[in-house]
């Protein structure tokens, strides 16, 4: 029997080999800000479990490398990811000296490379499975539940990231809710303004180019510069409009962060609304008028439903973009996960940076998967591309 290699599998196996053998699995530091010392898999884990992990990794890399059945590839990736998640906690407990509360153990580049390689294998397998939208959201829910379980069980409590969290548990959840509020709130605002604006641009020719050009320019202003630009007008509003200061409008803080995210969100929403409406087949529009629909009935019953998948794509872009961008809000006292990132950078405490970055990436990733599923379901049975 001829042995045949899987193209992606070759890459995965190479990354895995490097991550397992060459790169350090964990980092040990005497306290949270001194330079770390690398620890390999065999050094980081108690005797037999290090060898077991290497065996599992070798077998899984082989499964990835060769052309193997889909079920086997999926199983291998799930087994590896679960083992890695459990054993990094074990490494934390193993490397931390008894009773020492200053020492820090964190995952190192080898661990992250292994996670990356086998997540790639899992993602490739799931893509080949061609899961339904509901199926993909279900997989996401299972993964989230598994992470939640690990967190709740305390398996990771000896890791530096979790120690940073424990020290800041209260503020973590405050900043989390602030982050989500900023990202979602500015999205809701952008949809509330951008959708009608997009419809108006679609109907009124001379408005379209002007509005889209202005929004394009806004999009190119760097966020720091935009904050600077906003300080003066918002400060003026706070000082001169009665009640404005009372609801939190100030030159710095949440208000400019919210306004900046809102402005960045407008372009994708307006542009996608215009493109979506322009893509509605002319014949469908004319038939709608010919049947005696009023402008409003036509918008609601024909144009909007046909443009909806494209508009949703714009909303997906905005949501993922805003979850990432909301990190910047911390720069001007707007809060959010960025607070930990910038504090961590200031203290050269890498794990504090991760405490802000990891939840941000996870949120953006989850939002993308969920909205992709929604878009696919909304587009079902209505091939927009088809010229009717």
């Amino acid at each position, binding site marked *: 029997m001829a042995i045949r290699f899987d193209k992606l599998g070759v890459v995965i196996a190479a990354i895995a080999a490097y991550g397992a053998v060459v790169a350090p699995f964990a980092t040990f530091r005497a306290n949270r800000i001194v330079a770390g010392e690398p620890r390999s898999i065999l050094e980081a884990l108690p005797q037999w479990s290090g060898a077991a992990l290497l065996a599992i990794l070798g077998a899984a890399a082989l499964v990835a490398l060769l052309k193997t059945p889909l079920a086997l590839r999926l199983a291998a990736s799930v087994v590896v990811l679960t083992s890695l998640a459990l054993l990094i906690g074990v490494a934390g407990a193993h490397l931390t000296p008894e009773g020492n509360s200053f020492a820090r153990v964190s995952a190192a580049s080898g661990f992250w490379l292994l996670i990356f390689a086998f997540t790639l294998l899992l993602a490739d397998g799931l893509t080949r499975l061609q899961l339904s939208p509901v199926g993909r959201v279900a997989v996401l829910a299972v993964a989230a539940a598994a992470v939640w379980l690990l967190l709740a069980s305390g398996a990771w409590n000896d890791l530096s990231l979790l120690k940073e969290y424990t020290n800041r548990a209260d503020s973590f959840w405050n900043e989390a809710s602030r982050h989500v509020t900023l990202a979602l709130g500015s999205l809701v605002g952008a949809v509330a303004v951008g959708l009608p604006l997009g419809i108006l641009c679609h109907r009124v020719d001379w408005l379209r180019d002007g509005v889209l050009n202005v929004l394009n320019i806004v999009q190119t202003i760097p966020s720091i510069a935009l904050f600077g630009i906003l300080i003066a007008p918002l400060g003026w509003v706070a000082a001169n409009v009665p009640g404005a200061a009372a609801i939190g409008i100030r030159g710095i803080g949440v208000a400019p962060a919210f306004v900046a995210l809102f402005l960045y969100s407008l372009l994708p929403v307006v542009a996608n609304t215009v493109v979506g409406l322009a893509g509605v087949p002319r*014949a469908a529009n004319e038939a709608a008028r010919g049947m005696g629909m009023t402008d409003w009935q036509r918008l609601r019953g024909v144009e909007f439903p046909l443009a909806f998948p494209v508009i949703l794509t714009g909303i997906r872009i905005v949501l993922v973009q805003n979850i990432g961008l909301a990190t910047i809000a911390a720069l001007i006292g707007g809060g959010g996960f960025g607070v930990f990132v910038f504090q961590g950078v200031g203290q050269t405490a890498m794990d504090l940076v991760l405490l802000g970055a990891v939840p941000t990436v996870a949120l953006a990733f989850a939002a993308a998967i969920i909205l992709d599923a929604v878009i696919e379901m909304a587009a079902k049975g209505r091939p927009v591309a088809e010229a009717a």
Partner: protein
Amino acid sequence: MIEIEHVTKRYGDVAVVDDVSMVIEPRTVTVIVGTSGSGKTTLLRMINRLVEPTSGTIRLDGVDNRTVPGPQLRRSIGYAIQGHGLFPHRTVAQNIATVPSLLGWDAGRIRARVDELLSLFQLDPAAFGARYPHELSGGQQQRVGVARALAAEPNVLLMDEPFGALDPIIRTKAQEDLLAIQRRFGTTIILVTHDMEEAVHLGDRIAVMDAGRLIQYAIPAEILARPANDFVETLVGASDRPFKLLSLGAVRDAVEPGEAEGAAIGDEATQRDALAELLWSGRAAMPVTDDEGRALGRVTVNGLVKRAARPA
């Protein structure tokens, strides 16, 4: 009755419909023919005010159509758009239900009407009602488009090349169905086509348009016998004019006394079919029977040939 008076539509300097006047009698089929770009669709759309005339008036049963709000006017007039224009995001049943829903019919009545129309057009309601337009063939889409136009039982039906995508067999069937519906409900139909054959077959009257102007508006026999100018003559097709003329008459109007040998022909067939059958079978005459098989007499090649000549 639809009265079109001195109607003109200009886009910029070009009059795409140029001072057209015509009266369409109720419960008749009027066919508009003409080359591409001659203004047929534009004329049709001015009747339901999808296009507003630059000048002139259109009255429906004596009422100026500008006095009725557009959407309300259009709900009362069936419209089968050129190239079907079905809503891609709605099922076949939902598409057909469009106007009844706008008019606020109750769900039961709408469902009954949808099923009735689908059956009428040889589409099984159980199989087709829940499909989306892209799951139909071009011909099926077109039939659904016509069914949608008929849904609210309109008195006036505007049809823009409704049978263009149909194969000859289905097209003949659809034409017969349309005539049957027209007779049953007394609908006034205005139909646009490129096909002179279809015009002669369906039309009580034919309107010939060229470059925005109405060149001739008359009964089919008149158009065939006395084309108003060279353009109409070309459109009619000089070479098979006699056969088109014969296709207008039924065999029962050409029966002569006497007997003949061989297979008989029904008295409701067209004279053209009778002549074709005679020539093909190499006979000079053949018997004619009515729908119960009783002998009525015979038709002869000589008699039919005389009828195919240009009327005096």
